[in-house]
């Protein structure tokens, strides 16, 4: 199934080949370590950053790609950080913590998403006990996004062919009408999809694929990364 939306970067690397469950385990451990590590002294966070850079290099993801994607967070992270500079000692420290931890956690998610397909992450979510319903609805949304994206492309193509020199007003009116029509058609389409699902044996619960066993070497790799990260944070806090 094609996916128009994704942050995945195709590479042949050890990180890309790692089981997604092991990657999620490693990412969760790393994020916990970033949240636990002290900001003063700063060496634990510095070492965690080095660890993340190693993981990025291992995934053969260009650093400039991660940096470019992090740039979109400049306002969200930068504004509170700058505002905190005008506060007292506690506010300034909180601002630093917020900026450093946010950047590290955001970079971790970016590396995870650049090395793992979104659909694969959703399949992992589907097998977890509490959040499985989110994963199932997420898959529906992905399928819907593919359908709608194709429809938008078709509409746009027809538009370009039929009214290449339309004024902005005409285009905006057309866009509004097309959006309303798209919504109505989406609702009508859901009727057909629902009926088709029942005909195919849907019984109020979506089927999930049987999980394949997680290879021990992959589990160990994920666990090791998480433990090293947590160890660094723990030593930093203890010292």
């Amino acid at each position, binding site marked *: 199934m094609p996916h128009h939306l994704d942050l995945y970067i195709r590479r042949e690397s050890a990180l890309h080949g790692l089981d997604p469950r092991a990657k999620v385990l490693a990412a969760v451990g790393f994020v916990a370590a970033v949240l636990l590590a002290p900001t003063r002294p700063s060496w634990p966070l510095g070492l965690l950053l080095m660890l993340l850079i190693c993981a990025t290099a291992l995934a053969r993801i260009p650093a400039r790609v991660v940096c470019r994607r992090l740039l*979109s967070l400049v306002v969200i992270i930068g504004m509170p950080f700058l505002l905190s500079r005008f506060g007292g000692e506690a506010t300034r420290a909180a601002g630093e913590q917020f900026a450093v931890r946010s950047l590290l956690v955001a970079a971790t998610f970016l590396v995870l998403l650049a090395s793992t397909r979104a659909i694969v992450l959703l399949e992992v979510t589907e097998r977890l006990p509490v959040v499985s319903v989110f994963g199932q609805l997420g898959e529906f949304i992905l399928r819907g996004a593919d359908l709608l994206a194709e429809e938008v492309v078709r509409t746009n193509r027809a538009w370009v062919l039929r009214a290449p020199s339309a004024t902005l007003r005409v285009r905006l009116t057309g866009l509004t009408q097309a959006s*309303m029509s798209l919504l109505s058609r989406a609702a009508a389409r859901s009727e057909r999809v629902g009926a088709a699902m029942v005909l195919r044996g849907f019984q109020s619960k979506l089927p999930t694929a049987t999980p394949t066993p997680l290879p021990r070497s992959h589990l160990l790799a994920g666990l090791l990364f998480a433990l090293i990260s947590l160890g660094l944070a723990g030593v930093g806090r203890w010292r």
Partner: protein
Amino acid sequence: MVAGASNRDALVRARELALAGLLGALGLLLPIGFHAFGWGGKIFLPMHLPVVVAGFLVSPATAVTLGVVVPFLSSVLTGMPPLAPPVAPLMALELAAKAGLASVLYRSLRLPMWAVLPAAIIADWAVLALAAWLAAGLFAIKAGAVQYIGTAVAVSLPGTILQVIAVPLTVLAIEKRVPRLRPTRREETG
């Protein structure tokens, strides 16, 4: 008879999932469209539109689930809203409260749309206020939750106006096209 009821439940659930999936897909695509035009997400709240519409058309449980899923999925697929700083979790809370309340009031209690939409928007602001109050305590920030909410509400005013205009029109258009989705009609047939 039991098998018939079970089949009807399955059909209702299947339709809901399909509709929620398509509205959720719009929740992913609309912000991309708005960003393509250079219109800020914080100003026009494009992700809110389909999720609030879903609140009027699906059951409360599905509406809440959709509200939680859409920001996280958008974050995974496009990187926006970000997971860190925790904008996506905050939006998930906002959308879940907004869509869930709209669904409870409109579909379960069958209140009129003109009363439901303002209540849902106020619920959204209440969740924002709670989150701001918690964050202020957590990060020892001196600025109060009231200032934050005031700024957030003022910035997103165009988006709120857009919702007040577009959501009822869209819901009415969809209900006209698919009459089964009207709450009264559903009660009669159910």
